[in-house]
């Protein structure tokens, strides 16, 4: 479980405050004195403005504490992060341009992209299909649409980085056509189409940052596909 706004957890501090009232009331130091006569008088005179007297033996206090706890949790907006599920038709585009040889990401941008793609393939549900596209100077289908993970992974392993620029526009056009006509070269029977990585918004056609997960945070798409220098 995780929290969208952990700052709300500061509200949890209200629990010890309530608890303090409760504990302080319970733990009394016993003291022998000459006579409680004076203290009885003292209490009788000041009882009206004693805040602690009212909290005595109060089951409501525990309820208040529980309530405060739930409130704090609600303020923190909790959510559960599930396993990433990949289903339906997926197209993984791996950038194999020369810039991917850069080692600003360990061990290199390309290796990192390969790992991310591998992770997506392994997360595929039974029935999900994927196509692997290598986006180098020439766009080529590294592995045609299949649901077999072993083949996809083998193709991913065999993929090599090139020295040229990336034909991004071409690759995305190819991916788009694959997604639009899945029956053309896929065993899938018209499963809801989505580009891999955009599973949280299946209606969206493609999203450069999510495509293939190919190091989308790692500058493989430093240039938007539509404005790629040809």
């Amino acid at each position: 479980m995780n929290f969208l706004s952990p700052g709300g957890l500061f509200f949890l501090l209200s629990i010890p405050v309530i608890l303090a009232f409760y504990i302080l009331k319970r733990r009394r130091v016993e003291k022998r004195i000459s006579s409680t006569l004076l203290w009885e008088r003292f209490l009788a005179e000041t009882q009206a403005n004693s805040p602690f007297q009212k909290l005595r033996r109060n089951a409501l206090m525990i309820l208040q504490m529980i309530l405060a706890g739930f409130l704090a949790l609600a303020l923190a907006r909790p959510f559960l992060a599930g396993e990433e599920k990949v289903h339906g038709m997926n197209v993984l585009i791996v950038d194999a341009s020369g810039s991917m040889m850069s080692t600003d990401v360990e061990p290199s941008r390309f290796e990192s992209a390969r790992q991310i793609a591998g992770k997506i393939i392994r997360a595929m549900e039974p029935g999900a299909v994927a196509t692997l596209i290598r986006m180098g100077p020439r766009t080529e289908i590294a592995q045609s649409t299949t649901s077999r993970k072993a083949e996809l992974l083998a193709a991913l392993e065999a993929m090599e980085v090139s020295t040229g620029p990336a034909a991004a526009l071409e690759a995305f056009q190819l991916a788009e056509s694959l997604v639009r006509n899945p029956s053309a070269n896929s065993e899938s029977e018209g499963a809801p189409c989505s580009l891999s990585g955009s599973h949280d918004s299946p209606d969206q056609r493609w999203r450069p940052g999510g495509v293939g997960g190919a190091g989308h945070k790692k500058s493989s798409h430093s240039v938007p596909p539509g404005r790629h220098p040809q």
Partner: protein
Amino acid sequence: MATPTQSVLRSEVLRKLEQLQLVIQKRSRSNIRGERQSKARGHSVEFADHRNYSAGDDLRYLDWNLYGRLDRLFVKLYEEEREFPVNLFLDSSESMNFGEPLKFEMAAAIAAAVGYVTVASYDRLRFCALPAASVPPSAAGFFRSIRGRGVGLRYLQNLQSIQPGGQGGLVEWLESLLYQPGPRGLAVGISDCLDTRPVGEPLKRACGAGFQVVLVQVLSPQEFDPPFSGELKLVDCESGAHQEITFGKYRLRAYRQMVQGFIDEIADSCRQAGARHVVIRSDSDLDEVLFKTLREKGVIK
């Protein structure tokens, strides 16, 4: 227990005490000769009145000067001096065994002084310490009636054998006064007045019965300023009752007001009954208490 009366036993204090007398507002009604003014006529040095001579009167008391002037025989009458009974009460309940310094220590010292002053002026002392269990049986008999200078020191020694403990005191003593046979006299009660029963009614009845009552209230500094604070469960040493209390320095003023109110209430009861009331802190200087406070309050002269 440290000997409470030790400081009274110092010879210079005793010498001072011997010069003091208890303030008596009433004439003695006792039949036993002493050193107090009474309504009876007798043979002291204090001239009271003349009376016509009648046959059989002692010729020694004829006023010969008057006979020379008026040629008539008169007998001089003198005031008879009688003893004045003093009832002295020392609260020896458990609550007196508290405070720093002990309330009982101060109370016993005052009792020693008042008792010694009584005995030194040839008045009869009836000493009483309650609860009865706190007094050893050998001393209890002695305390019932003490008279004569010779027993002054014995009185002080017996006073030291009292061990405070138990419950009750002041109100029981005031009530017991009513059943006491013999002439009424002075009644001095030394107590912290922390009695569960209100002191007002019995006080009124004792005064109404003819006693001249003096109430000496001894309180410890801890009762004026509690040395503790926080969440406390206070246990009464006498009754074992507890009282849960939340106390902090911020409530000290309210507490002091309450203590003052408590003292004022007792002072009011005394005023209404016609008794004297003296408050003494157990950390006061004993000499100052004996020779200043009690004098100013008109208990001793």
